[in-house]
Structure formats: C-alpha cells, structure tokens
C-alpha cells in the first residue's frame, strides 16, 4: 500500500493567496450555483467517479479484446490496433486519478493498475546495457516470461501458470515497489517494449513477432508472453469492474453508500484533497519536476509508449472535472451537475472565478505540451522535452508545472473557504 505522505522536502510550499490583481467575480446566473449543497455536490462527485470508471472499464474491455486478437493472430495490424486500444484506455483512466487521493479505497487499489516506474525486467527480456532498475531490487531481472520458477530474495516462486491471481500476487514481490507485474504499464511494456532511444525521438519498438508461434517467434517464449498479456488484461478488466461497483448508485454496501452516509463536509474535503494532491505533489512534482530537473527519462510516466503527454493532460482534465462537475464521456455525453465551483461561488465569487481561470490556464499549458508532443511536423514528446539543454522543452514543461502550482494555492484557499482543512481526510481523525 502506498501511504499518503504529507510534508515537504522538495517544498513547493504554497503560501499563495494572491490577493491583488484578482479577476473580477464571474457573473453567475446559474440556479445550480444557488441551490448546490455539500451533499448534492458530493453525490454528483460519486456520479462523476462512476461514469469515469465505467468509461475506464469499457475501454479496458476493448483493450482486452484487441490484445486477444493480437495473441491469436499476431499481425502488424493487430499490434497497431492493440496499441490504439491501450492509448484510448488511458484517456478515461487518467482522468479518474483525481479520485485517487482522498479516497483510500482508490489509493489502496490503484497500485495494481497504474504503479510506476516499474522494473520491467521482472516481466520480460530487457537490453542489459540500457536497463536501470531500482537499487537492491532482487526481482528486477527475474523475467517471469522466461521462467517457470523465479527466485526473489531467496524465495522461490512457481510462475508456471500465468493467471491473473498469480500476477496480482507478484506485485511488490520482494518488498520492492518497482516490481510491478500488472496494470496499464505492464501492458504498455508488453506492447511497446523498452524505449531504447533515450532523449531521441522514438518509443519502444517491440516486434509483433514477439507473439508469433513456432520458428517465427522472436526473443523466446512467445506463448508465455501471450499468456501473460492475456492474464494481465483480464485482471485489469476485473479490477475496474470492482471499482465501478464501488461507485454505483443504488447499492447499500459499497463505497458510494458509505460516502453518502458520512458527513458531506468530509466528502467535499476528499474532493479538494484529491485535486490538490494530484495537482501539486503527484503531477507537478513526481511526474514532471523530478523528470525535468534530473533530465531523467527513467522518471517518465508512460516511458514505453511515449504517451506521457496524454497521461499528464488527462490528469489535469480530471482535476478540472472534479471542480466544475463536468465530465465528457467517451461516447460524447456530458455528465454535469452540482459542483465545487457552485459551492465556492456562493460564498466567494472572486475565488471561484480565480480558481476556474487557473484550472483553464493549466489545461492550456498542458494542451501546449500535448500539441508539441503530437506535432505532425516536428514532434517533441515528453522524454525529449526533458533532455539536457532543451530550453524550449523545459519551458513548456515548466509552464505546466507553474500553472499547477498556482491552482493548488487556490484549491487550498477554497478548502479553507468551505471551512475545511487541507489535511488528508484519512488522517484528519474522521470516522471513515
């Protein structure tokens, strides 16, 4: 389990309350703003989470089918389709990360789906010369696909039958958080392979023949690689199914019912805590600043596929969704309802206007990062932006970091405005 950890060695301390030069209060004519209550906002938050996880599940099922087709018939076209399905699955999932911090049920569960960085040598072959794993990780080169038994730190494990249960049990084996056997990034590695391009353009280029049968099989054990892929995508689907059920309306024994029965203030606190933590510590800090300041593509989030820009972009969008109460589903439907924005508007329209515009500014900065990475002329993915001496790339990343830092200051203020503490709701001595 990943424990929440608060204070700040790297100190992007926010003491911000920019009192001067504030935007004028937005004109709010919506009746929603007047009628929103903490309870209705929390209920709609659960709706947002439910819709988000449902979309994550739908796209994970599509990924599961696409990888099944790839395993059955390993062609370039099926490889491409599987990669596209993976990219599509990331769109809703990354938005749900705004629900992670604050809701312990999500945070305790998500490691099996989205843990990173991973020591991929646990799973499959890697280039020995260009593989840097976590120091002291006895499982870093175990290569499950190549083995019937693996030995990690003196413990021998039978890995002959690659089932979802077996893989789930291998996470963090040997006490190392980098031993990630499951989740999106394991699938990503099985599709793309190691990115050996460093700061140069290009992502992992695993040949489709890694899934071929008989003499065509490259890099050995193609059948086991297929079994692994099959098991790990099945597990992803069943994990997401479980989380969808936790947020589903109409049940009396799921997380949603607990949330709705608790004090609505606690729910609102969870919303803001999730926004602030993802915004500052996780996205601006761990996922962007560390990679940038250390020029470290090892600290890149989607390092095999070079899809990091989208992971960051949809994280940002997830934060904005929680505040505005709006979520654009993968089928194009808009989910909307009573929001935090409405609540803040009731007591401090100026703050609401400021935070809303800061959230938009962050999305603008993240859009610029995404556009640069996806440029058809001269693409610069995230691992190139963070290269030593790339001033242009650094400035794009820094602008996104700064925007996220600024909005976090206002999220903090909004928390106080609503009479709440910014502490982790799970550590604030609350009952649940």
């Amino acid at each position, binding site marked *: 389990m990943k424990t929440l950890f608060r204070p700040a060695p790297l100190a992007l*301390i926010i003491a911000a309350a920019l*009192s001067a030069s504030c935007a004028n209060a937005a004109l709010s004519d919506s009746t929603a703003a007047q009628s929103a209550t903490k309870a209705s906002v929390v209920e709609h938050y659960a709706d947002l989470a439910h819709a988000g996880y449902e979309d994550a599940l739908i796209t994970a099922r599509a990924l599961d089918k696409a990888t099944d087709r790839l395993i059955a018939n390993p062609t370039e076209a099926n490889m491409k389709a599987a990669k596209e399905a993976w990219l599509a699955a990331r769109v809703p999932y990354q938005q749900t990360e705004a629900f992670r911090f604050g809701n312990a049920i999500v945070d305790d569960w998500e490691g099996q789906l989205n843990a990173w960085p991973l020591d991929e040598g646990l799973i499959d072959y890697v280039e020995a010369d260009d593989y840097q794993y976590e120091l002291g990780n006895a499982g870093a080169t175990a290569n499950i696909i190549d083995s019937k038994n693996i030995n990690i730190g003196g413990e021998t494990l039978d890995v002959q039958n690659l089932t979802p249960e077996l893989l789930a049990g291998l996470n963090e084996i040997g006490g190392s958080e980098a031993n990630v056997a499951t989740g999106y990034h394991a699938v990503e590695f099985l599709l793309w392979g190691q990115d050996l391009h460093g700061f140069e353009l290009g992502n992992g280029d695993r040949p489709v023949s890694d899934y071929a049968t008989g003499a065509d099989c490259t890099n050995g054990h193609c059948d086991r690689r297929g079994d692994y892929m099959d098991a790990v995508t099945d597990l992803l689907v069943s994990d997401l199914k479980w989380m969808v059920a936790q947020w589903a309306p109409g049940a009396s024994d799921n997380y949603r019912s607990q949330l709705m029965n608790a004090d609505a203030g606690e729910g609102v606190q969870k919303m803001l805590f999730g926004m602030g933590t993802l915004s500052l510590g996780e996205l601006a800090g761990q996922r962007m600043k560390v990679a940038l300041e250390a020029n470290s593509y090892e600290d890149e989030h989607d390092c095999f596929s070079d899809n990091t820009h989208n992971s960051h972009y949809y994280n940002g969008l997830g934060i904005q969704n929680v505040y505005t109460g709006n979520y654009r589903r993968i089928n194009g439907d808009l989910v909307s309802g009573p929001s935090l924005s409405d609540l803040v508007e009731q007591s401090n329209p100026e703050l609401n206007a400021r935070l809303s515009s800061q959230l938009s500014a962050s999305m603008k900065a993240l859009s610029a990062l995404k556009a640069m990475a996806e440029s058809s002329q001269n693409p610069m993915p995230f691992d190139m932006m963070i290269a030593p001496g790339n001033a242009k790339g650094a400035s794009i990343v820094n602008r996104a970091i700064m925007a996220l830092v600024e909005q976090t200051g206002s999220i903090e203020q909004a928390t106080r405005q609503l009479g709440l503490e910014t502490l982790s709701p799970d550590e604030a001595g609350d009952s649940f």
Partner: protein
Amino acid sequence: MKQLTISVCLASTLAAAPLMAADANNPEAQPADYRAQWHSDILTGYQNLEARSQTLAAQAETYCKTPSSEGFEQTQRAWRDAFLAWQRVRFVNFGPVKRGNLDWQFQFWPDSKNLVARKAKFLLKGNTAITPETITESGVAVQGFPMAEYLLYDQDFNKSDKALPAEHACQLLIRVTDHIANNGETVANAWGDFQKNYVENDQYTDLTIRAAMAGIELLEERRLAQPMGLRGTGKRSVYSADAWRSGASLIAADATIQGLQQQFMPAFSRLLKDHEQADLARRIAEQLDEAHAKFPELDRPMGPLLTNDEEFRAMQSLYVHVSQANVLLSDQAAAALGIVRGFNSTDGD
C-alpha cells in the same frame, strides 16, 4: 528558469492567524524578533556550508594534482564535512535555496533509479572534457553531493579503471565540487541579502515553522522509517536511505537534528514560551537532545545495522525520539500556534 517557488503575496487569509500579532501576554515580544534570530542562526548554517564546500573544492583540486591515498581520504573527509553542513540547513525549504532549485542541486534524493550512477557512467564514457557548462547542463543528479559521493565512495566504480584519480574522474570531481562551492556561496550571500524581506514579512514565521515540520517529518518517514522497513513495503533496504555509499546516512540524520537544535529551536522555543507553551518547548528540545545523544555511538553505516536485530534496536531508539519530536512539533505545537498545513510537493506516492 527553473524556478518553482511561487511569489508569495501577503495573504489576507493568514492575517488573522495568531502568529501574526504580538502576543497579548507578552506585548514586548514582536514576531519580527523571532525572525531576526532565525535569520541570523540560519545564516550561520549557510556560511558554514559555504566554507566547508570551498574546502571540499580546494581539497579535490589538491588531491587531483598530486594523488595519494592520504589525499583521497582527506577528500572523503572534506566531502563528509561539507555534506553534513548541508544536512544542518536542509530543513530550510523556502527563500534563496529555492531559486534555481539549489536545494535539489545540493542533493537530488531519493534516487531510486540510481540516476547518479547512470549519469556518471554517461559523463565518463567518452573523452569529452567536462567543463563547468557540462555540470550546469546535466541536471540535478550531477550537480551535488551525491555525485561527488559516488566518485569518492562507490565500491564498484572504485574498482574500475575509470576510478579516481583517473583524469576524467578528477575532472568531474573538481567540476562538481566547484559547482557545490559556488552554490554554497550563492545561497549564503542570498540569505544575507534576504534579511530585510524575511524579518519584515509575517508570513515567514509560518513558513519557517512549516519548514522545520517538513524537515523532521522527512527525517522520520523517508530517511529513517523507509530504509528501516517501518513504512511502505516493509522491506529493510539501505538503498532507500540517503548517503548509503559513504555510510553517512545516520550521521547525516544527526546533522539534521543538530541543525534543528541550533538553527530552529532557539527562536522557536522563545516563541512557544511567549505563547505559554514553555512545557511543549522543553519537551521538543528534550526529544531532539535524546536523539542527538545517540551519537557518536550511532555514527556507523546503516547497512550492517539493518541486518542485525540487536544493532537494529539502537537505531530504533533514535527513530523513536525523532518521531516523538515530530509529533510534538507537527501536531501539538502546530495546533497550539494555529499553523495550518497546506498541500506539499511530496504529497502523492
């Protein structure tokens, strides 16, 4: 511009906090007095860092000019002195040390992917000369104490033909220690210039206390509990500690404790007493004293202590005092003084 510190306006929302006003019970004590003392105590710490870093840079140069095993050991000692000087002021996480991310430059940590070794190998691979610009452009994993530590202490590296005093390794050591020395000078000067701003702005009282809270929590959770297997996955691993290559993880913890004792507590104890919290001040000081009293006995590499339960207990006792000090400071004192905790950069996982 690698600058993350955001400009801090005088926050109207904080104006009502109890720390902002002179205490009713002690109208003589002005909040600016505490800050004047903090400023001066922290300045002493930065000046020490500056001096020790300069000694390190000079020693590296001397050693590389006329290498000897004695000179190598002297350089290791100079590294350690400068690194410990940094540990004493490491808790200060605002102000000049944030400009250009000097704090990350002094010490990039944690480094779970062993980026320092990777960058060193990369820089020492060819025969390209290592210039000051190489260091400036190579990112924080190259620019500070961990890189110099790698060159001076890494066992595998020291067995290789690239090891010190090989020309290229010497070049890297000299450039890195120069970079540290320059940063030491920059931060000491900038902290001096920061005096008026710091003393006159009420918000820095809160920021200074929050910095100490964050510093001691980092020490407890990440620098001790994590390698000791008391948090996270529960695995004991010296690689999660800082300065494991030099075996200085524990003495560095002591240096941070001393830094809090010498550069934070004097003004803070006074502030607590003025807020009728003399007992709390005494108890915090006591826990820090108890933790410090474990040294020099505990001045040993952490690795062997993790594998021997008997020896592990000595470390556990240090941990207990640090964690007590953390509770007293971060919970009790913060509550008594109305200090509100905000989001922090290490939130998340």
